[in-house]
């Protein structure tokens, strides 16, 4: 059933690179907060935060190396979360 799953050990060096990436992106979050991007303030902050979350999920949580079932389960969870948040805007955005 889980043909694609296998034990996957990532090297300390690689994990350190990911950690470095996360630290840099944290710096970016702080950096962009000093600039007023107007309407884009929130989208930019969310984009950086999402990029960091993606790195954590793909490499620290090994989603990249999981089988299709786990990937589909995870994506469907995110999809439902996105639907639940976005559908409330049918209400909030048009009041």
């Amino acid at each position: 059933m889980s043909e694609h799953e296998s034990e996957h050990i990532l090297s300390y060096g690689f994990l350190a690179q990911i950690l470095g990436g996360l630290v840099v992106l944290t710096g970016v979050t702080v950096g962009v907060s000093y600039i007023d991007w107007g309407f884009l303030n929130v989208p930019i902050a969310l984009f950086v935060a999402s990029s960091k979350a993606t790195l954590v999920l793909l490499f620290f949580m090994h989603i990249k190396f999981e089988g299709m079932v786990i990937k589909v389960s995870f994506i469907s969870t995110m999809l439902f979360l996105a639907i639940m948040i976005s559908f409330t805007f049918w209400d909030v955005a048009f009041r």
Partner: protein
Amino acid sequence: MEQVKSFYETPSPAGLTGIKAWLLTHDHKRLALMYLWAVFFWLVLAVFLGMALRLELMFIGETIMGPEVYNSFFTLHGVIMIFLFVIPAIPAIFGNFFLPIQIGADDVFFPRLNLFSWYLYMIGGLVAVISLFTGDGFADTGWTFYVPFSVSTETNVSLTVTAAFILGMSSLLTGLNFVTTIHRMRGKGMGWLQIPLFTWSLYATAWVQILATPVISITLVLVVIERFLNIGLFDPARGGDPLLYQHLFWMYSHPAVYIMILPAMGIISEIIPVFSRKAIFGYKGIIISSMAIAVAGSLVWAHHMYTSGMSDVSVFVFSLLTFLVAIPTAVKVFSWISTMYKGSILMTPPLLMALIFIYLFSVGGLTGLVLGAAGTDIHVHDTTFVVAHFHFVMFGGTGFAFFAGLHYWWPKMFGLMYNFKRAYISAVLAAIGFIFHYIPMFILGLQGMPRRYFDYLPQFETGNFLAGFGGILMVAGILLMFINLWVSFRVRETATADPWGGTTLEWSVPSPPPLHNFVNEPEVLEYPYDFSGVLARAAKDKG
């Protein structure tokens, strides 16, 4: 069939005896029975509370209880029925018992987690009981715990929602266990299109449990935080939004309706073909409709909020989406009817109860369209029309499916057969009582009688009297049904391994099944509802 020790005689883990063999068991069948007795207790209690409410309303003015007790009783009735009966009953009892057997497995994937889920269920129930007798009394908010009232009321809301939180976790873990079991433990030859429809319905349900339950958990935590810390999450004066609570609550609680009804539909999909001696019409259609209901049912939550003051655009969009759910639901109903068409019908108590389900559920579904359309909903919102609709779907639907499942699988779970005549009488009595009980509520609702009101205007008295009278008949029918099943323990008429002529794997194992379910390697049919073997055996027996 060769004589083998049943699971009653073989504890798991081995060596445990007496009550320990039950309280520490890893066996999915024992856990199913432990759920059965616990669920039975809660059902009886909630029926008693519901009956007390209807007796109070039978006559105008205060009769057997005052308004405060009335408010607590309908809240308690709702909380118990929803969180302790309707949501867990079918998955936790029949799902636990039959899902592994139907897919050719010897247990669920996480047996210890299964035991833990049962303990969470019991602890959740216990906390609900404690909340009755502590603080300033049981919550009086209704099972919806709407803000701002749930934040400001002096009653014991915090402990009540804690109970619901714990019960939600139990439900979520059961769902997780089922999804994993279906993915990882299917027997040899059991592809996705060999899985029986009851198991498919549990699979669809389990996904909704996993995806939606965390939302209500967080929401209930927010209510507790708000009560203790007064942050203002739902208070417009401090930037909060009371409608946010309603969105969050219904994001779970509407999909929860499908957690309640999908397994019930799975039971009906098992019973109809067996007693029609005919392959189910539209096997793939029913599978797709189960998954479609699970997905579409998660997108329609705000149809509970048409009169809340949310935007008109939102009302339009959610009304449109609501009507989409009717399509897969109708696919199922038409498939069941088509299965019976030109079938060789064998009337039995489970089939009669399944037919009652189809009738009552259809009325419930069609009156749901009145509520799904925003224009008509505004007229009947928060009236007894909604109460009648909900009970037609949840009790006429899930309740009668539960009774049907109980009578269908009773011989397998206990190895005992019950008295058919009493089963028929009890089902008919319960159904007639049901109709007398809830039809007047539709009419009262259309005439404008609000729900959750302790008293009413004189013009509503006849309807309320009739509803109370129907309630008495219905409860009498249910009691007779339970007594009849209980009597089977005393009469001890032994049931065969396959008393109905079923084709799914649970009918290939002894009644009751052995610890590891299968004595021999299960033979999986290419098509799970292939009755050619059953019909050939019947013809051979005939001569």
